[in-house]
């Protein structure tokens, strides 16, 4: 079974493009599944079911979503194998841009959308930087020039990824995406493998449920903002 991680900001079009790309693979006789990681709520299971795709949804709730992902991905992969899947897609929203669910040895996809603006590639972080494939959606409604600038800005943070313009609504580019998914590494080991980027180091009182504001409530690893004061003459 191939395992592919797909990450991107909320509403960037991850589910739409996954649905379109997987439809091509289903047409080619592949058995495909999706595990959707989200924080609070997700209605996507219904969309996957309607498309005849096996899926499970994991909601991290109170837990750090990235920690939740990495502590559960093995179980999800085991489920995929029990189901006899050829391909399991792990879909997760880029929750704080600090992290990335990408795993070494497994195809890593980042989905961005043009409407987020040309500064976005510089703000996304490891989810984009460590991806093998970058899919940029909603290109049908922005100018060609902005698309080219966007591509350039993606290149400035990730020199190696394949970069594709796709459309989750019309399915433009989804066939090409399906070819890349189908060529993903097969049966790469997960247990004992490594994340491509570490998750945050902070363990502070707020991680453990503290809600009060104030210095006396801040315990554990905390980091203070550096504020440069203007020099008044």
């Amino acid at each position, binding site marked *: 079974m191939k395992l592919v991680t797909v990450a991107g900001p909320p509403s960037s079009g991850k589910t739409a493009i996954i649905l379109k790309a997987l439809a091509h693979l289903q047409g080619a006789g592949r058995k495909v599944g999706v595990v959707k990681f989200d924080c609070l709520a997700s209605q996507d299971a219904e969309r996957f079911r309607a498309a005849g795709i096996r899926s499970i949804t994991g909601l991290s709730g109170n837990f750090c979503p990235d920690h939740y992902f990495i502590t559960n991905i093995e179980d999800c992969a085991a489920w995929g194998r029990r189901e006899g899947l050829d391909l399991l897609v792990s879909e997760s929203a880029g929750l704080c841009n*600090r992290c990335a669910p990408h795993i*070494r*040895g*497994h*195809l*890593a996809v980042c989905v961005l959308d*043009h*409407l987020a*603006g*040309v500064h976005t590639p*510089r703000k996304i972080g490891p989810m984009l*930087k*460590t991806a*093998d494939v970058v899919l*940029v959606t909603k290109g*049908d*409604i*922005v*100018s*060609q*020039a*902005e698309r*080219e*600038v966007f*591509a*350039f*800005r993606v*290149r*400035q*943070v*990730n*020199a*190696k*990824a*394949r*970069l*594709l*313009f796709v459309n989750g609504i*019309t399915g*433009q*580019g989804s*066939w*090409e995406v399906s*070819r*890349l998914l189908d*060529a*993903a*590494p097969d049966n*790469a*080991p997960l247990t*004992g*493998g*490594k994340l*491509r980027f570490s998750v945050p180091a902070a363990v502070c009182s707020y991680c453990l449920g503290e809600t009060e504001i104030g210095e006396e409530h801040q315990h554990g690893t905390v*980091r203070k903002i550096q504020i440069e004061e203007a020099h008044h003459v």
Partner: protein
Amino acid sequence: MSEHNAGGVSCRSLLAGDSERGSLGNGESRASTLRPTETGSELAFTDSRCDEFLLLNKLPSRAAHRTLRAWWEAQSWDFRTESGWDFERLVDGLAAFLGANAAMGESAPLRSLEIRRGRDKSGRPEQFDLLFKPGDVVCLVGPTGAGKSRFLADIECLAQGDTPTGRVVLIDGNAPDPDSRFTGEGKIVAQITQNMNFVMDLPVAEFLKMHAESRALAAPESAMQRVLDAAIRMAGEPFGPETPLTQLSGGQSRALMIADAAFLSPKPVVLIDEIENAGVDRTRALEFFVDQGKIVLLSTHDPLLALSGARRLVIRHGAVQQVIEPSPQEEANRVRLAALDRRLGRLRERLRLGERLDEPWEQLVGEALT
């Protein structure tokens, strides 16, 4: 923990220019011109673009350091442990940033684009092989769902008999490099469609500068000026370099998109999808593309534009069913249509100036309709 997974590479091998993403195990070697040079400590660190990189990432300034390694080692321990960077990541980041221009790279000009016949939606063979040369204007006609988009997508992904249509696309007579097929830079088509908008909140000049930068042009200023002049000549109403993109009228922004695609976009093929009635001098727009040696694919049912092409491809049921070359009568009609179009343009201009259009019909349309 041993690194026995397929793509696992140590930091050391990354530093040596080995790409963890390049060794995915899918048997594809990627054209990677963008390796960090040998080791990070030798990465060029004297360029002003290095300063730009540091500034963008809110990193301390380069100061007097001549290598990235020296700069890194001069930073405080706190910074090195808490900034979210480590040296390897920095090497990769800087290399990507410096290499972006090369990646967007200027490919050699296209000499020919060939599309070998495929099959229609029922699997019946298509009848035509097509050959396009720079400066060709080709129109695509056919109802929605007929396969125009797939035809264009086949060109976009440089199909090699592996798309649903089975078409094969050759560049300068050869199959394209397989590595370039599935990546944005390998793509050869620039698009202008009815639905496109500028979403950036920037003045025209700054935006053009941003686009010119991504091209690493020798003379970005003059390229920008050309785009601006051309756009103003196509749009009815003038606008200036300081006009915010978001305040351009429909016609002005379409004109700017066209001028930008003609003069600033590196893509040798331009696809124009339904831009009728946008308040743009369409004949002039086509001339710009032809002058720049672009291959223009026009998906349109606008009579003037459709007759402007040297060929008209009729697409039906997923295949090119007919290739029409304009007859002498069609050519004569196109000239009349162009006169009519200019006439209508003048009427629009008069309305804009607050005039009435109340002269007798013959006078109003002049010789255009007679």
